[in-house]
């Protein structure tokens, strides 16, 4: 290719496909379902497509933010596995280090909840 775009960039994007499938389920399939159990399961399927859509829409930004925040913690862990090991060694038992860790964990949780359940996030954050 002559420009510098990713050679594997697709059009329509994965996000477009997911959003279309979600819209189809929500507007065409759900209204036609009478079986309560199948309806519930289809609602869940529609919801998880929404989760994937929100996550993909902020994916690179989310990952970079999480990585930057983790690396700035005491001990500079480069991934979750390393952070878990530091926690288990007691590296964050100190009140100040513990407070920094909790701030990062909650920022990480916020990003997860933004994808999974933005309403929950609004509720608990007031």
């Amino acid at each position, binding site marked *: 290719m002559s420009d510098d775009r990713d050679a594997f960039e697709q059009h329509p994007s994965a996000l477009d496909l997911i959003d279309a499938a979600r819209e189809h389920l929500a507007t065409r399939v759900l209204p036609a379902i009478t079986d*309560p*159990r199948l309806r519930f399961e289809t609602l*869940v399927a529609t919801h*998880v497509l929404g989760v994937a859509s929100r996550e993909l829409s902020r994916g690179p930004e989310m990952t970079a933010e999480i990585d930057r925040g983790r690396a700035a913690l005491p001990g500079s862990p480069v991934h979750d596995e390393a952070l878990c090991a530091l926690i288990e060694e*007691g590296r964050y038992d100190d009140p100040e280090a513990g407070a920094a*860790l909790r701030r990062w964990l*909650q920022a990480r*949780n916020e990003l997860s909840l933004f994808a999974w359940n933005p309403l929950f996030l609004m509720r*608990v954050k007031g």
Partner: protein
Amino acid sequence: MTEVIRADALPDPLRDELLAAVTAATGLPASLVAARRLAGGASMETWSVDLRVGDAVEALVLRRDMGANMSAYALDRPTEFALLQAACAAGVRAPRPRYLSPAGAARRWFLMERLPGESVGRKVVRAPELAAAREVLARQLGEALAVIHRVPVAQGLPAIPGPTEGRSPAEEALHQVRAVLATLGLRNPVWSYALRWLGQRVPAWDGALVLVHGDYRIGNLLVDRDGLAGVLDWEFAHLGDRHEDLAWVTVRDWRFEQDARVVGGVGSLDDYLDGYASAGGLPVDRDAFVWWDLIGNLRWALMCHAQADRHLRGADRSVELLSLGRKAAEMEWELIDRIDAIEKGGR
């Protein structure tokens, strides 16, 4: 009682097994009047069943193993049946167990009486017709738990699991959490941090080992216009610390979005604990209560991941089970938020 998913006929071999067991127990002819499948838990098949036994019609609920256990710590059906008998005899409001499957049944089951009432959590916390019930429910939940904690479990019952010798119930709970983590094979810094924090603050135990229901929460309780009508789903019962049961209903997820009503989305902690004390419950240690609330959130988060794992490993392909893995973020939020508040000097 619960949402009807489809009005299937009971499979013939199961119907024949039920009728034979009822006739063997009563000496009376039995026939099927009606059956419909109910939405059950992930490890149990449940049916609403009406049987004619002699001249009377019995309204019953069938609880039958699905074949795959959700938890290594769950009771089998014969033990749950015997425990329900003991609980009812001790005055607990619960469905009376009626008939137990024969020992040779491939998937064990029992039939219990069908009580009227609502058990679906979202309806219990919101239905206008249950508004008066919600006014008294928290207190009733405390009272009922005090009765459960006095059920004598030493005599005439199959063995109910309890903490390993030398461990307190809290230490046993931590041990079980670590075992689940090892089985899951996943690492998450929230779990590591919460586990370390809880492990450094194991509450002192006064040695009182009581019958713990193990899943005492909105969703497993039948509620009618007068309040609590019955305690259901005893499969996670065990011997343990009363605070485990007391705290479980206050875990945020069991409030069904009615966050301000700390007890199951229906009432206040003061009413609940007053009810427990007034019905003869042992003293409540607030620090132990908080500890069990927090480990309840951690356990529920891990259980959610275990459910997602059932899909991912191919044991039970289900988008609903898979989605629970992401729901764990809600409990993880709660854990860190609560620990942070405690560390800052609050609750």
